[in-house]
């Protein structure tokens, strides 16, 4: 057992290495590039026996990854943000091929305006594609999730590609202590991939991803893919149990942190959830009954695990690090629909925070608990709240004066 300081990007590369990924189609984008740089260096030094191809775009990269996976080669790829969106046509397509591989996405908020720092609108744009999604909160979890993702996607009951998501900067460039699992044990957990009858071979041609018209066959294929995704809930449970036995780290589909007797819980995903843990510990130390619920799996969405975890809670502060423009927080919507059939539902309060990597301060976590407590008392949830301060708006106004917003007003009337 070795414990080393590595970045989230380094952890993703270690995951690919330990999974013995054989093929790595690559295209660079900040903040992901360090992953393929690391793998390229290992290939160059002869430390891993993989083949890397640099492609001319993410669209080609995802096509290539899907095509390689149908031949039964264990395939790894990584992208981020605009790159994921550029390849989006193929994200949906390769999922329909039922080609299992792992795509690491390093979350970075989408343009416009352009930024480099994270939120989850990029990865959530792939939510309905058929890719499974595992979201990580620590560098250790990134490494372990890549291994779990292969087990999950390659399982006969599933056969789907998997996105492993980590936040740009907050994980990608941040070093934390990570235990590098023993490779023999990883081999035991993750034997070579055998696609069996679905393997594509040039010498034994088959057609994949065929055309169907009329809707009926289409419905069949799409719904089958949906059922495969739902199967992943059970497969994830099995795989994570085995993982825990071998490596001693437990990954449930939904992480529950100090929720046992909690009255208020935070519900959020990604690395900012560790900030919530910090706030939970501090609030607990002054006697507040708070906890955190963090879905690791976003697709499939672990509805039953969530319902059983929130039973008896009075209120939930849902923190969305994303925004569906014209609707609101995506996680809030997902959670609300999941809990609709429940009796004695907790009050849900919606917060939008951390867009474009904006920090969420400790005091803001405290305040979200206070707001949720008030909603419990009155039985009425306030409207969604953007975490944004008076000071930030003042700063914005300063920047707008540099950008000469005032001066140009009325310009169109000329």
């Amino acid at each position, binding site marked *: 057992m070795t414990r080393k*300081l590595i970045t989230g990007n380094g952890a993703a590369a270690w995951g690919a290495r330990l999974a013995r990924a054989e093929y790595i189609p690559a295209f660079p984008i900040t903040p992901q590039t360090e992953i393929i740089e690391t793998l390229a260096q290992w290939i160059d030094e002869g430390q891993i026996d993989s083949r890397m191809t640099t492609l001319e775009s993410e669209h080609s990269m995802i096509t290539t990854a899907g095509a390689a996976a149908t031949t039964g080669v264990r395939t790894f790829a990584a992208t981020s943000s605009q790159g994921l969106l550029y390849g989006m046509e193929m994200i949906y397509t390769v999922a329909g091929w039922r080609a299992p591989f792992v795509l690491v996405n390093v979350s970075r908020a989408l343009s*416009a*305006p352009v930024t*480099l720092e994270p939120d989850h609108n990029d990865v959530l744009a792939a939510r309905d594609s058929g890719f499974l999604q595992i979201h990580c909160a620590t560098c250790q979890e990134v490494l372990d999730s890549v291994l779990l993702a292969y087990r999950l996607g390659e399982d006969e009951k599933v056969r789907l590609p998997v996105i492993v998501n980590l936040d740009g*900067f*907050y994980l990608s*460039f*941040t*070093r*934390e*202590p990570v235990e590098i699992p023993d490779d023999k044990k990883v081999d035991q957990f993750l034997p070579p991939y055998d696609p069996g009858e679905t393997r594509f071979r040039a010498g034994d041609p088959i057609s994949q991803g065929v055309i169907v018209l009329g809707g009926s066959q289409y419905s069949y294929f799409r719904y089958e893919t949906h059922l495969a995704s739902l199967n992943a809930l059970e497969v994830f449970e099995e795989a994570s149990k085995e993982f825990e036995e071998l490596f001693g780290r437990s990954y449930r589909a939904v992480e529950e942190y100090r929720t046992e007797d909690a009255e208020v819980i935070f519900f959020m995903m990604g*690395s*900012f959830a*560790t*900030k919530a*843990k*910090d*706030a939970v*510990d*501090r*609030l607990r*130390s*002054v006697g*507040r009954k708070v906890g955190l619920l963090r879905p690791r799996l976003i697709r499939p969405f672990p509805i039953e695990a969530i319902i059983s975890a929130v039973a008896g809670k009075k209120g939930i502060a849902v923190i969305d690090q994303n925004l569906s423009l014209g609707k609101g927080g995506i996680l809030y919507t997902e959670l609300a629909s999941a809990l609709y059939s429940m009796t004695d539902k907790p009050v849900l309060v919606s917060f939008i925070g951390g867009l474009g990597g904006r*920090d969420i*301060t*400790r*005091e*803001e976590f*405290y*305040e979200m608990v*206070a707001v949720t407590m008030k909603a419990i008392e009155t039985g009425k949830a306030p409207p969604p*709240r*953007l*975490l*944004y*301060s*008076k*000071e930030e*708006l003042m700063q914005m106004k300063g920047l*707008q004066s*540099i*950008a*000469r*917003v005032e*001066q*140009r*007003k009325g*310009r*169109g009337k000329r």
Partner: protein
Amino acid sequence: MYRIRFHARGGQGIKTASRILGTAFFLEGYEVQDSPRYGAERRGAPIFAYVRASKKIINERGIINKPDLVIVTDDSLLLLPIAGVLLGVTERTVLLIATDETTEVWKKRLNLQGLVLSISTQAAVESHAGLPLLGVACVGAAAQLAGAISKSALEEAIHEQLQPLGKVIVEESLAAAMAAYDQMEPYARCTTEREDPSADSYESPHWIDLPFEDARTSAPYIHAAATTFNVKTGVWRTMRPVIDLKQCNRCALCHIYCPDGVISLDAKGYPQIDYQHCKGCLICLLQCPTHAIDAIPEHGQEGEIS
């Protein structure tokens, strides 16, 4: 928990410095989180890095708002509000500056209440490896100030992080770090882990409901041309490219390759550098086929931009 923030310019080796400090803490049995922060621009741009170290699991993330120790490897950043060096600095924050001015000057200039310490930039500049040594010297000082890192852990961390750069760099870095470690002995342990205020009393965030503003105001536009001209990226420079026109054959490669387009050609086809905007990346120097371009340290030069 120790919360330590580094400020520097891209290219001064701050990422490596923060990693050496992080590694040294880790070797001493601490949980560690270290990370550099930079924008789209690298070399010369103000950047920062941070290190957290604690005996317990670290759940905090991101920018350190209330640092115990702030390290500045380029004193020009102290006068640049956008660099944010003084963010969250209180009377209990220790400020360590690589500077050739006295700490008294900085205390007065910035109206600082807390402990201000300095290490000289001279030794580092004179060394074979040049400026990046400043970062590692600051790490040596920080290790002593925190009092949690032994010389042997510091040495091992330097070896681990700098080995790939070769023996000379490792040896020079060790010498610079150990000298700073010894220099700071009178201040050993003056950087302490802060007790955080209880969750019972806190200042509520000043949240507001964002008002609607129409697209003339709220679209992300800059409503004027050539505004980048107002941003004097010349202040980013740590090294200044200087062209010896006698050696220049007017091939114009420097003019073509300069990423900021700040080398123009005069009527005779000779290159001219706009030092108000040259950020000091030295790409021109690497491109010049006749080696007509030299680099000199910016500090103390005539016409230094500030």
